[in-house]
C-alpha cells in the first residue's frame, strides 16, 4: 500500500452519550482500496465510530469526509456510495432472499438481477429460503450481498465473523478479499486477531474511545518484538485451528 488517497478521513471525532463519552477525539484515514481494521475490546467505541461514518448516528463534534462528502451535509450522497453490514441487523419478515434483494434494489434505486447478487456470495441454492432459515455463515454472506447491491466504493462490516465456525470464517475471508480485489474499500471490525492479521492492510486499535495504535499488522508486531516481547510458549509452525481445518476439511458446511 502506497500512501494513496484517503477515501475516508476522520478528524477529532467525539461522541458523548448522556452519561459517558464513547469516542474521545478519534482521527484516522482509510485509504482507497485497502482493508482497514478497527480492533478493540467490547465497548471501546468501534461500532459507534462506524455508525457515525455510516451516517446512522449523530456525532457530538469533529469532522468526517467520505469520498469528498461531509457527513454533516451530504448524508444521502454518502449512503449511495457505501454498503453497510450491521452487527445484528434483521431483514424484512416472511420474505425469501430473492424478494429481499428486490426490496434492497428498490431502496438503493438500482437495477440488479437478484440471482446474480446471490451467486456472488454463493447463495443461489438458497434463493427461495427465508433469512431466518439460514445458518450463521449464510446469514453473514447474505448481509454482505445486500451491501454490494449499489456497487459501493466502501463497505463497512461490523464483526462479520463472530460466531462462525472456522470453515465459514475462512470462506468469508475469501469473499472479503475478493470484494477488495474488485476495487472496493473495506472497513471491518473484529475480535479475532488472526483474522485481522490475515485480512487487514492496516489496523487501528481502539481503547476507551481513543486510538492507541495504528499501523500495518506487520509493523505493529515488529514494534512489539523490538520492545523485547517474547511469547512464553514457543510457537510451532501450525496451531490448533490448522489442525481443525486439516482434520475436518476446508469446504464449509451449512448447519
Amino acid at each position, binding site marked *: 500500500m502506497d500512501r494513496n488517497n484517503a477515501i475516508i478521513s476522520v478528524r477529532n471525532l467525539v461522541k458523548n452519550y448522556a452519561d459517558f463519552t464513547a469516542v474521545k477525539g478519534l482521527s484516522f484515514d482509510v485509504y482507497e482500496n485497502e482493508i482497514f481494521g478497527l480492533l478493540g475490546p467490547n465497548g471501546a467505541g468501534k461500532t459507534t465510530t462506524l455508525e457515525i461514518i*455510516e*451516517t*446512522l448516528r449523530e456525532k457530538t463534534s469533529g469532522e468526517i469526509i467520505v469520498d469528498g462528502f461531509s457527513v454533516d451535509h451530504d448524508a*444521502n450522497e454518502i*449512503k*449511495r*456510495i*457505501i454498503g*453497510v453490514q*450491521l452487527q*445484528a*441487523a*434483521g*431483514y*424484512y*419478515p*416472511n*420474505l425469501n432472499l430473492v*424478494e*429481499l434483494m*428486490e*426490496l*434492497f*434494489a*428498490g*431502496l*438503493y*434505486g438500482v437495477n440488479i438481477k437478484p440471482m446474480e447478487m446471490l451467486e456472488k456470495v454463493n447463495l443461489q441454492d438458497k434463493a427461495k429460503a427465508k433469512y431466518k432459515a439460514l445458518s450463521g455463515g449464510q446469514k453473514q454472506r447474505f448481509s454482505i450481498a*445486500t451491501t454490494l447491491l*449499489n*456497487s459501493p466504493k466502501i463497505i463497512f462490516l461490523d464483526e462479520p465473523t463472530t460466531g462462525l465456525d472456522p470453515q465459514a470464517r475462512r470462506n468469508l475471508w475469501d469473499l472479503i478479499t475478493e470484494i477488495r480485489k474488485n476495487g472496493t474499500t473495506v472497513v471491518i471490525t473484529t475480535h479475532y486477531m488472526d483474522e485481522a492479521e490475515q485480512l487487514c492492510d492496516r489496523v487501528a486499535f481502539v481503547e476507551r474511545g481513543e486510538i492507541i495504535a495504528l499501523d500495518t499488522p506487520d509493523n505493529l508486531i515488529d514494534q512489539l518484538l523490538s520492545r523485547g516481547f517474547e511469547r512464553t510458549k514457543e510457537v510451532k509452525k501450525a496451531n490448533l485451528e490448522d489442525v481443525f481445518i486439516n482434520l475436518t476439511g476446508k469446504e464449509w458446511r451449512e448447519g
Partner: protein
Amino acid sequence: MNKPYNHTKATLALAKASFRSIMRSPSAVVFTLAFPLIFILVFGFLGGGGIKVDLAIAPGSDLQNPVIKALEETAVINLVKNKSKTEIAQQLEKGNIAGVIDVRKNTVPQPAYLANVQYTSASMDKGNILKSVLNNLMFMLNTRDLKPSVAEIRESTVHGRTYRTIDFILPGQLGFSLLSTGVFGTAFVFFSLRQTLVIKRFFATPVKRASIILGEGLARIGFALLGAVFIIMIGHFFFHFTLIHGIVTVLNMLVLSIIGLIVFMGFGFVVSGIAKSESTIPPIANIITLPQFLLSGTFFSIDHFPVWLQPISRALPLTYLNDAMRQVAFEGAGLWDVKLQILIMLIWGIAIYALAVKVFKWE
C-alpha cells in the same frame, strides 16, 4: 451513479415487500378475513327466518283436521310433534315452547272441533304472538263461508327492501376488520421492524422516513381493501347483502374503508411507540379495539344501549365508520351524504396522528 435517486421506486419496493409479508402472515389473514367471515356466516345463517314460535301438539291430539293443517301452513309457527306429556310440561315450564295445543273432535256437531291451548308464563311475549295467530286463524276458519256483517279486512303489503341481519352485521364486521388490521397490524410491524433493526438497515440506504411509512401504509391499505372486497362479495352473493347502486356502492364503501383504515393505523403507530415489549402490544391494542368492537354498533344498534352509554358510543370513530357504511350500502347514500361521519373520522385522524408524531419511535 449520478442519476437522481428515485423515492417513488423506493416507496413502491417497500410497499411490495410489505404486501408480500402481510399476505404470508397468518395473524393478519385471520384478523382481517377469518374473524369477520365467521361472524358473517354465523349471523348470516341465524338471521334468515325472523321470529319462530314453537307450539307443541299434545299426545293424543287429532292430527287430521283443518286447525292443524292451517297451523302447519303458518310460517311463524313451528309445530313440535311426538313429545311425551312430561317432556312438554318441562319445556313449557322453561319457556322453550310457547304453548301446547290439543285438538279433539267434538261430541256434538257444532263446532266440529275443540282446540285446547295452554300457554306458559315463562314465554309471555311469544305466547302473545301465538295467541293472536291462533285467534286470527280461528276467525278465518270459522268465517270462511260467511259474508262479513260489519266490515271486511282487505290486506296488502308494501314491497320494500328487505332489511336483513346481514345488512346490519356486514358493515359492522367490515369496520371491525379494518380496525384490527389498522391497529394490530401497524403496531406489530413497526415494533418488530424497529426491534429487529430492519429499520436501522433501511436507514443505511438513501430511503426517506416518509417512504417507509408510506410504503407500509400502501401495503396495508391494499391488503385491507382486498379483504373488504372479499367480505362484501361473500355477503352479497351468499347472504344477499344489499348493495343499492351495485359497483358504485362498493366503490363508496372502499373509499370509506380507506379513510377508516388510515385513522386506525394512527392508533397502531401510537401503540408501537408506547409498547415496551412485544407482549405489551396486544393488551394496549385491545384497550383500543375492544371497546369500539362492543360499543360502536358492530353487533347491536347503539340505539338499544342504555342512555348513559350512548354518548361514549357516539364518541368512537368506528361508530361513524359503521354508520356511514350502513347508510351507503343499504340506503344508497353518496359520500357527500355521510360527510358528517367522514368529518368526525378526520378529526379523530388529526388528533391521533398528532399524538403518533409525539410518541412514535424509529429506534
